[in-house]
C-alpha cells in the first residue's frame, strides 16, 4: 500500500495497524502502566529497604539539615544549607549509615540531627550530605559543592570513612546531573583535577573523565529541556515515573542472581579490588588537601561496625586500611578517630536474615553522635557535650 500525505488517515484506519503489532504493544504498555501503579508502594518500600532512599520523614519537622534525597537530587536540598556567614558550619558526609535507621520509630533522629542539636547553642550548625554506598570521589564532590556556594563554605568537613566503599567508583546519575548543571561546580572540579594532577594522577584523571562524560551529554539548555520533558512524560506515564524504582529493583534482582551464582552472602570475604582501592585512597588524600587549601578543617573517622556481625572484609586488608588511614591523618594533621567499636551490638538491626553489620537503630545514631562530639567536640567548640 502506497501512502502519501493525503492517505495518511487511511493508514491509521488500516486493520493491519489496528489489529497488528503496534496496537498490541500499546495495549501491553498500558497494562504495564497499571501494574506499575499497583506496585508503586511496594517498589518504594523495596528501595527503602535497600537504603537507596531515606525513610519517610516527619512532616512536622521545621528544619531540614541533611540531603533527604540521599544524592539523587541534592540540588533540591542545597538551599537548606545553613548560611555560614551567620555562624560556623560543619558538614557530615558518609554512606547509608548516616541516614538509615533500623526499626525506625517516629521521632527518631539521625547522627547529623543529634550533632546539629548539640552544636547549635554554640553557634555551629551541622548539615548532612550522605548517599548510599558513597565513595571518596563523591565525597570530594560533596565538599566541592559546598565550596562552590559562597554562603555554604563550611568550617569543618567530617567524613565517616567506610572500608568497603573503597571498591566503588563513578559518580551516581544524581551527582553527575549536579556536576553538569552547576557551571561553578564544574569549574572548581576541573581546577582541582588540574591542580592535583601530579600529586594524585589517578584521581585527577578520573575527575576529568567524569567531567568529560557529563559534558558530552549535558549541553547548556538542553539538560533543562530534556529534564523537563522527562518530568512531563513521567507525570503522564507511571512506567516512566517509576523507572528509578524499577531500575533499582531490577539491579537488586540481578545482584541476587550474582550472589546465588557465586555463593556470595553479606558475610562472604570479598577481597578489595586494588585499582579501585588505590583510586579511592588518592581521593581521600585529595579531600584533605582541598579542604585545607580552602581553610576547611577535614576530620576523618572510621565508621562503627556491628561487633557481633561477620563482615565481608578480608581481615589483613581491613587492618592495613586502618593503619594507612591513621598514618595519613597523622601525616596531614587531620583529626582522626576509630569509632569501629563504638556502638554496642544490641543497637544494631537485621539485614538479609542476619545481623546488620553497618546500620544501627536510633540509639546507634545517638551514640555515634556522642562519640563524634567526644572525639572532636573541643575542636568543634562544643567541648564534647551531647544534647
Amino acid at each position, binding site marked *: 500500500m502506497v501512502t502519501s500525505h493525503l492517505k495518511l488517515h487511511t493508514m491509521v484506519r488500516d486493520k493491519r495497524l489496528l489489529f497488528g*503489532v503496534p496496537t498490541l504493544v500499546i495495549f501491553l504498555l498500558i497494562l504495564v502502566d497499571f501494574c506499575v501503579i499497583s506496585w508503586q508502594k511496594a517498589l518504594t518500600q523495596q528501595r527503602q529497604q535497600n537504603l537507596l532512599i531515606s525513610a519517610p520523614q516527619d512532616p512536622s519537622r521545621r528544619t531540614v539539615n541533611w540531603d533527604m534525597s540521599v544524592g539523587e537530587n541534592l540540588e533540591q536540598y542545597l538551599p537548606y544549607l545553613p548560611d555560614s556567614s551567620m555562624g560556623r558550619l560543619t558538614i557530615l558526609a558518609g554512606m547509608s549509615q548516616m541516614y538509615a535507621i533500623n526499626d525506625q520509630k517516629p521521632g527518631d533522629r539521625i547522627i547529623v540531627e543529634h550533632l546539629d542539636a548539640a552544636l547549635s547553642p554554640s553557634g555551629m550548625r551541622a548539615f548532612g550530605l550522605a548517599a548510599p554506598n558513597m565513595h571518596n570521589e563523591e565525597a570530594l564532590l560533596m565538599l566541592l559543592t559546598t565550596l562552590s556556594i559562597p554562603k555554604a563554605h563550611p568550617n569543618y568537613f567530617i567524613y565517616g570513612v567506610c572500608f568497603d566503599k573503597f571498591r566503588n567508583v563513578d559518580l551516581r546519575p544524581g551527582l553527575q546531573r549536579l556536576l553538569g548543571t552547576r557551571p561553578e561546580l564544574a569549574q572548581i572540579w576541573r581546577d582541582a583535577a588540574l591542580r592535583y594532577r601530579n600529586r594524585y594522577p589517578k584521581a585527577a584523571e578520573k575527575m576529568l573523565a567524569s567531567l568529560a562524560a557529563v559534558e558530552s551529554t549535558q549541553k547548556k539548555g538542553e539538560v533543562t529541556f530534556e529534564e523537563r*520533558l522527562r518530568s512531563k512524560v513521567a507525570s503522564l506515564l507511571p512506567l516512566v515515573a517509576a523507572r528509578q524504582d524499577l531500575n533499582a529493583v531490577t539491579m537488586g534482582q540481578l545482584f541476587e542472581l550474582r550472589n546465588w551464582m557465586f555463593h556470595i552472602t553479606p558475610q562472604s570475604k570479598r577481597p578489595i*579490588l586494588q*585499582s579501585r582501592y*588505590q583510586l579511592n585512597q588518592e581521593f581521600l588524600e585529595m579531600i584533605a588537601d582541598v579542604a585545607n587549601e580552602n581553610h576547611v578543617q577535614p576530620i576523618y573517622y572510621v565508621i562503627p561496625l556491628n561487633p557481633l556481625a561477620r563482615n565481608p572484609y578480608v581481615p589483613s586488608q581491613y587492618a592495613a586500611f586502618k593503619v594507612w588511614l591513621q598514618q595519613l591523618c597523622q601525616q596531614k594533621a587531620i583529626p582522626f578517630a576509630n569509632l569501629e567499636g563504638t556502638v554496642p551490638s544490641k543497637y544494631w538491626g537485621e539485614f538479609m536474615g542476619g545481623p546488620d553489620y553497618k546500620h544501627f537503630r536510633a540509639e546507634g545514631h545517638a551514640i555515634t553522635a556522642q562519640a563524634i562530639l567526644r572525639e572532636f567536640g573541643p575542636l568543634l567548640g562544643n567541648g564534647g557535650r551531647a544534647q
Partner: protein
Amino acid sequence: MIFTSYTYLLFLSMVFLLYWSMPPRWRNVLLIAASYFFYSTWDWRFGFLLLGISVFNWAYGRFLATRQEANTPLVLGVLVNLVPLLYFKYTGFFLTNLAALVTAAGGGWHLDIPKIILPLGISFFTFQGVAYLVDVWVGEEPFQRLRDFLLFKAFWPQLIAGPIIRPHEIADQILATRHVTQADLAFGCQRILFGFFKKVVIADALSTYIDAVFLRGATPNGVDAIFATFGFGLQIYFDFSAYSDIAIGSARLFGFTFPENFNWPYAAPSPQEFWTRWHMTLSRWIRDYVFTPISFSTRNYPRLALLWLLVAMAICGLWHGAQWTFVAWGCWHGSLLVLNQTALKGIFTLNRKKLSKGAYFIRYLIGWGVTYLMVNLAWVLFRAQDMTSALSMYRAIFTLKGGLHPAVMRENTMVFIGVVALALLALQVARPWLEVNLGQQRPHPLHISGRALVYTAMIVAVIVFDTSSKAFVYFQF
C-alpha cells in the same frame, strides 16, 4: 540532541507529523530546516560552517561537471573540503608532533597548542563532500537545485555519524515525491527501537565498566584487561550499530532508504570480510576514494597494491582520531588485510565448492576465531587514551598480570560481558532461521503476539535502564 533522548523522540514525532501533513513540494524545505535545527542544538555557530561547505560543494560540483577532463579543479575542490577538517581536527596533532620533533632534534620550542572545538560530524560530512565532487567529476549528475543539495548534505539522520551516503544512493530519493508504506513505518519504528535498546540497555551499561579499566592511570590486571578488551568490542559494536539503526529507521519514516552500515561483523571468517560488514559505508569510501585511485595510479606495479592497502587503512585510522593510537589501529587492520591476501590466505579463504561440509565448518571456525581475536585485540589501540596505556593493557593481557584476580572489574561485570557475547553469538548462529521465520509477509498470529511481547519488553527495558543518555562513541570522530 542525542538520538536516545526524549528530546529527539519529540523532535522526530513533530517533524514526522508536520512532514506528512504538508504538500510534497514543501517537505524537503522542512527537512532542511529540521536538520539545521538539529545540528544547531549542539553549537549553532557550526551550522554556518556546514552551510558554507554545502554551498561551496553545490556550486563547485556544477562547475566541476563541465571540467571533467582536467585533474586540477577536482584536486582543488577536494582540498577546500579537507581544509576545515585539517584545521579543526588535526591542527593540535600536527603542532604537538612538530614540537616533539623539534625538541627531539635538540631545539627548544615551547608551543601553546590552541584549543579548537571540533564541529560535530565534520569527519562525516567532509568525506561526503569529497565523494560528491569525485562522483560528479567522473560523470555523476550534479544536483541542480541548491535546496536538494542542502538536504543531501545536512539530512540529520546521517549528518553526525553516518552512514556516509553517496550522491547516487540518495539523489533520486531527494528529487522524487517520496511515499511510505505501512511496511516502511514498521521497519523505521523497529530499527529505532532496536537502536534504543542496543545503546541504552547494552552499550551504555558496558561503557560504565569498561571506562574504569581504560582510564589513564588505572592499573588493571590481566583478567580486567581481557574482559575490557572484548567488552569494548561489544560496546562499540552495539553503540555504533545502534546509531546506524536509529539513523536508518528515522530516515525511513520520511521515505528515505539508507544503505546498511553493519552486517553481523563479528561473524566474519576473515579480516577482509570483516571490513565488508563493519562500518560498511566507511570501508566502501576508503576503498573507492583512497585505495582504488592510488592503486590505479600505480597499476603497472601490482605489488604496491598491498602497500596502498596498508596506507589506506592507516588513513582510515587517522580519520577516526588525531592520535597515534588510531594510526596504529589502522595499520593493525591494514596488516591483517595484507596477511589475509598473502601469508594467511590459506586460513581465511573459504570455498564452499572445494570443501566438504565438515571441512568448511572447521575452516570457518578457525578463520572466525582468528579474525575475532585479532579484531578485538586491535580495539585496545582504538580505546586506549595513548600508546603508553595501550602497551600497558597489552602487557597485562599477555603476561596475565595478577593471575586470575581482577583489580578493577567485579565478577558481575565479567558475567555481563560474557552474557552479551554469548547472546550475540547465539543470534549470529540463529540468524538464518530468524530471517526466514520472522521476515514472512503474512506472519502467524502467534508471531504477532510474540513480536508485540518482545517489543514491549524492549521498550520497558529502555525506559527502566535509561537513567541518562550518554553520547555515542562515534560522535568524537
